[in-house]
């Protein structure tokens, strides 16, 4: 029996050896990745009492700051602007962790990066060298975005196409991050429960974390696909005038909005947002060209915006369109197999505006230590090349025509040549999302914008041109002033 007992001992030794290895994996090898996991609130809890840098808007407006507090925690995080910047700053909460800039730049704000570590003495004294984060967000543009969207579900994204700086990022409904960040833990918990129970889901920054059918705004991508492939030019083909396009393999026609008849060359069909023509263009180009173009603008990839959990805008893979021309036709007009965040559609507009190159979108402008020294600055970089400069130039002309003579006349900024494209994404229940994307000035773009007014009961007649365009126009005007 002794041999078996020794083997039992060896067996148990092996089992405990496996435990030893597993503990090393969790506690040493993978510890950093677990500590950074978004579901892990431990870093927040540790930082809750410590000094923490400010978050500032582009003009120096304080968006988040820590003030001394009595009781269990030594400090209290405040958001003087309430809900206006919630989607950007996020919150810094004992119970809910952190979101937004508070999470992305947590190490910088808490003073734990090598840039701000300071000298050994400070390290030993345990005084963290917190840093302030200045954002690219322009409060006056953000305010205009909020005021012009009003109390309607929707999102507004405005950015500078030249460097990717986000100027406004608003969605309604929003929430007051101060409620979640309270040192009164019970009050914070109650506030969080109420926000989570709210069916409107105000905690969700829909502008970059929710996808919608992009509707006709996606025709810009389809047009870009046609131009890039060489199969479509400004002059040809001239799509036949039609009131119903029947894709192969089906008998159900795709109709134009309002049942109209349309068809001609590219500029004309973009101006009136001709469904039949773009559906046919999509089928003629084929899935590979269309999906490839969408991916060139960033679809199926997570935009590298410096905020947590940016949602990917998905388009179905090429193989899924095989023997499925009806779906391809619907996708070419922004329905069915493609979805987009408002951010992604803003990036499409920005790509066209920037000669075809989509810059990395970002909300951080720079990071300064407590002496005001800049320790980090965002360097503009190209994220993805959407189109060639020539294609971008043709698209700009086509989109300028849409504002001058087409469905987006309400987007025109007085005295400034403006480019745009409307969208009315139908949800099949009589309701629709009203979209618009655009940029200005079209000859030297400084601002690109995307607006979605989400479908709402009782507003079956809302179209992008009527509902979303005036909001985008107000935001463009304000942003052009902020970005001279």
């Amino acid at each position, binding site marked *: *029996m*002794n*041999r*078996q*007992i*020794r083997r*039992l*001992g060896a067996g*148990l*030794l092996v*089992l*405990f050896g*496996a*435990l*030893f290895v*597993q*503990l*090393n994996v*969790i*506690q*040493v090898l*993978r*510890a950093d990745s*677990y*500590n950074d*996991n978004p*579901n*892990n*609130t*431990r870093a927040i*809890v540790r930082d809750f009492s410590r000094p923490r840098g400010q978050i500032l808007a582009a003009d120096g407006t304080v968006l988040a700051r820590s003030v001394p507090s009595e009781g269990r925690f030594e400090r209290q995080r405040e958001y003087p602007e309430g809900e206006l910047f919630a989607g950007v700053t996020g919150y810094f909460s004992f119970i809910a962790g952190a979101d937004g800039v508070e999470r992305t730049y947590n190490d910088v704000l808490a003073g734990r990066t090598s840039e701000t570590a300071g000298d050994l003495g400070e390290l030993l004294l345990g005084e963290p060298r917190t840093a302030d984060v200045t954002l690219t967000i322009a409060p006056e543009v953000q305010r205009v975005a909020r005021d012009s969207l009003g109390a309607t579900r929707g999102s507004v994204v405005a950015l500078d196409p030249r460097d990717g700086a986000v100027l406004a990022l608003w969605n309604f409904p929003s929430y007051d991050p101060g409620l979640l960040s309270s040192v009164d833990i019970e009050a914070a918990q109650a506030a969080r429960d109420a926000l989570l129970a709210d069916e409107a889901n105000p905690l969700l920054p829909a502008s970059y974390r929710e996808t919608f059918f992009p509707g006709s705004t996606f025709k810009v991508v389809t047009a870009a696909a046609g131009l890039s492939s060489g199969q479509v030019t400004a002059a040809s083909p001239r799509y036949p005038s039609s009131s119903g396009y029947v894709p192969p393999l089906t008998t159900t026609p795709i109709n134009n909005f309002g049942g109209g008849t349309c068809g001609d060359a590219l500029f004309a069909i973009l101006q009136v947002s001709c469904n039949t023509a773009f559906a046919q263009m999509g089928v003629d180009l084929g899935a590979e060209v269309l999906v490839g173009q969408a991916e060139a603008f960033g679809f199926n990839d997570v935009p590298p915006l410096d905020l947590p959990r940016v949602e990917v805008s998905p388009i179905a893979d090429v193989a899924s369109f095989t023997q499925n021309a009806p779906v391809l036709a619907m996708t070419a007009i922004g329905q069915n197999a493609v979805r987009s965040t408002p951010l992604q559609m803003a990036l499409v507009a920005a790509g066209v505006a920037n000669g075809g190159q989509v810059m990395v979108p970002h909300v951080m402008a720079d990071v300064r230590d407590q002496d005001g020294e800049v320790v980090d600055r965002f360097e503009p970089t190209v994220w993805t090349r959407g189109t060639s400069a020539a294609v971008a130039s043709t698209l700009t002309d086509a989109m300028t025509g849409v504002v001058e003579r087409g469905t987006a006349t309400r987007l025109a900024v007085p005295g400034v040549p403006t480019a745009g494209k409307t969208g009315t994404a139908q949800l099949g229940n009589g309701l629709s999302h009203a979209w618009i994307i655009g940029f200005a000035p079209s000859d030297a773009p400084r601002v690109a914008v995307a607006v979605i007014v989400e479908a709402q009961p009782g507003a079956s007649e809302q179209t992008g041109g009527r509902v979303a365009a005036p909001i985008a126009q107000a935001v463009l005007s304000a942003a052009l002033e902020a970005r001279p």
Partner: protein
Amino acid sequence: MIPVVRRNTELGLILLAITITAATYTLASLATTADLPADIGPFLGVVLALLAGAHVATRRLAPAGDGVLLPIAGLLNGLGYVWIARLDEELAALQATWTAVGILAFVVTLAVVRRPRDLERYRYTFMLAGVGLLLLPLLPVVGKTVNGARIWVELGPISFQPGEFAKIILAVFFASYLVDKREVLGMAANRLGPVTLPELRHFGPVVLAWAASLLVMTAQRDLGSSLLFFALFVVMLWVATERASYLVVSGLLFSGGAFVAWRLFDHVQRRIAVWLDPWSDVSDQGFQVVQATFALAWGGVAGTGPGLGNPDRIPLIETDFIFAAIGEELGLLGSVGVLVAYLLMVGAGLRIALRAEVPFNKLLATGLTAILGIQSFIIIGGVTRLVPLTGITLPFVSYGGSSLIANYILLALLIRISDDNAAAEPDALA
């Protein structure tokens, strides 16, 4: 001479265990209240009194018994108490009571069981008691379901987990039964190529134990105990008969049973799904394991320090998941330290088994040690996601009266056998 050396070793190690426990207790208190523990005097007094009591009992009742087991158990018990006190003061008061009762049970066991072979005589009483205890929670009225597992019994004001005691009683029964039958069961009757198999009917007991463990798994929904009981029986059968074929056949049986259970029962499916991928449901089913992983990772190599972590967000932290709390606050050093403590106990237990001359003693020591080793592996492996999580206590560390008392009885039996070994061959120790 040898008994004196062993007892002095034991005393020294006990003092060391008390020092470590008291220091950790003080650190945890400094961290949570920024002050020395208000009750550090009484705390030290009680710990000292309890362990000194146990030590005096071994000096009197088992002078040549192993001197390492009690100090390690005391250390694990002490560390467990520190974390329970840090997490929940009410539970800590109860745990202190359970510790006292556990040590009393330790002393009583040593006093009553003067010779291990006394136990052998009551074989079938033990069998009935073991099976009865195992099935008791399934009875109406007294049986009670807690956290999804029907493993509690409520008799008036007292509620306990009979399974904790059943495992020891069954180890005694298995030892006496197998000592009797090992010749027969070990006979090679059938040849299957190069493999010799015992006669088919001798697999009867295996199938019985297998069926019982499946019953525990499905009717009581207690996966951990089910695995522990079956593993205990199989290991003892293998050691007794020296036939590896029992291990293979049992392994196949268990795999088959586990597979069928996985197909049929959603509580088993949930455990497996969470084990394979806890991340897809981090806020609900995977929450506990994910939080435990976060706790261990946060501890890193050196830990946050006692009282400075956030283990309180893990459900069942005082019982099944206490290892995660220790791992967070003492780091890899502490968690591996706990592993080493169990390994030392397993080593001591198997050494006792190796030195035992009487087959019954040998088997019983093997079985008791296997319980200790397998149980701590199952729960630590579950907490660290090495194996699927099965709710079971961490011996001596977890909160829980039944577990603590049962494990002190187990300890007393091992020390009793060790003392018996020394009496049988005093020279072997030199």
